């Protein structure tokens, strides 16, 4: 079995279904930022607190892509998921073959393999249509 490595450091924690995306909230202006930065991009303040973003959200929009990408064979789905905090996350969408996508539908965060790389399995966040309205 291959070792799993995150596709980028610092974006999420937990490699199973208990993890979450790591954002930051600016204590000065309230802006939520994902991924985290050293300073708030909205007010340029430095007083940020690390937060775990919600694990569910709504499908703001989606597309089925019929072009190859660096890591994904077509067709694959990607979309924007709007979290209750108001932040939108761009993500691979999984499970769309089983359940037709619709804007506004409930989505849940999962951590899954994104692609293979030599000896490693690169893992990251994906969203899937959620069963019974939540994750």
């Amino acid at each position: 079995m291959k070792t799993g490595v995150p596709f980028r450091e610092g974006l999420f924690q937990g490699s199973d279904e208990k993890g979450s995306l790591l954002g930051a909230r600016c204590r000065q202006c309230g802006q939520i930022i994902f991924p985290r930065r050293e300073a708030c991009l909205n007010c340029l303040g430095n007083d940020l607190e690390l937060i775990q973003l919600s694990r569910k959200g709504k499908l703001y929009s989606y597309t089925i892509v019929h072009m190859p990408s660096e890591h994904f064979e077509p067709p694959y789905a990607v979309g924007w998921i709007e979290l209750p905090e108001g932040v939108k996350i761009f993500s691979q969408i999984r499970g769309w073959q089983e359940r037709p996508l619709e804007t506004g539908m409930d989505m849940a965060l999962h951590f899954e393999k994104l692609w293979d790389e030599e000896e490693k399995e690169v893992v990251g966040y994906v969203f899937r249509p959620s069963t019974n309205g939540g994750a």
Partner: protein
Amino acid sequence: MRDVAIIGVGSTVMGKFPESLPYELGAEAARAAIQDAGISPGDLQFAYCANLYGGMVIGQAVMGEIGITDIELTNIENACTGGATAVRKAWWDIASGLYDIGIAVGVESITTSPMAGKLITPAKGDITGELGMNMVARFALSQRRYMDMFNISLEQIAQVSVKNHRNGCMNPYSQYRKELTIEEIVNSRPICEPITLLQCCPSTDGAAAAILVPLDLAGKYTSQPVTIAASVLKSGDYAFRWEDMTFSDMTSKCANSAYEMAGLGPEDVDVCELHDAFAMNELQHYVELGFCKRGEEVRLLEEGVTDLGGKIPVNTSGGLLSKGHPVSASGVAQIAELVWQLRGQAGERQVAGAKVALAHVIGGEVTGLESGAVAVHILKR
């Protein structure tokens, strides 16, 4: 600050030219603009050359080919906004009194570039790119939301492509000169759903050029100077400030600044070239440029307001959809089309009595920004 006029424009035919080197395309457009202006190449005091894929100091190769050396020459990159950026910079060098005559060239040769036939891979480290984002997907996501929220059909969006390809048939510089039907467009190969192939601009090689002087010297060169009434260039704002992905805040703010600078409003615009990289962009830009309120854009199109003969013909050149989209050249090519319109030289596609014209380009993907850059120019005679 001095008023600035355009006294000459030129363009190559747009298309796929594997045998033409980038600097040859640029030189062809520059020669055409020089001839149009009735000047000698040696008159030029400065040059800007916008380009993305042609490599190091391409502007020097373009200018060297036609006898222009030893001047202030700057190569510009600003993605789809590169050509408009070159015009903006040339405008300011004249307006501010630095120089009295100069040229803005935009040139792109995708076919001979290292990108030819390749996927534009995301910049290393671009998170959304690594997760499967690309240029078409970015707009497909906007279009899906747009269709679902505002009840717009694919057939309605396809009408933009029908109109622009019809216009392209009348433009000798257009890459495509073939009418398309709604059915052909809707049923063409899906690229990123709901965007199909014929809702996308093609990959294009070509170049365009414009020659600028102070308005008070323009009479020396031409009886038909075209004045630059406004020139605005802005970099993109953060996507987290972007309430609604179906409306370009960047275009809206940029257009408002341009109207203010020109002392004109959207109601004054007689002809417009806007950034129809994908068919649905044109509908959204109607709203952002102030041609109608939200929710009225499809009606504007369907009632022929933006068609030839309508109140504000849009993309008479065929737009990016039909004329083609030679990335860094597009902003200058729009200016060329509008100068021809304002001079009454646009042939079959002439907008009768056009006095005020608007050019709009936007583009460049950066994770976290709505887009890289946007530019609006307003021209008048």
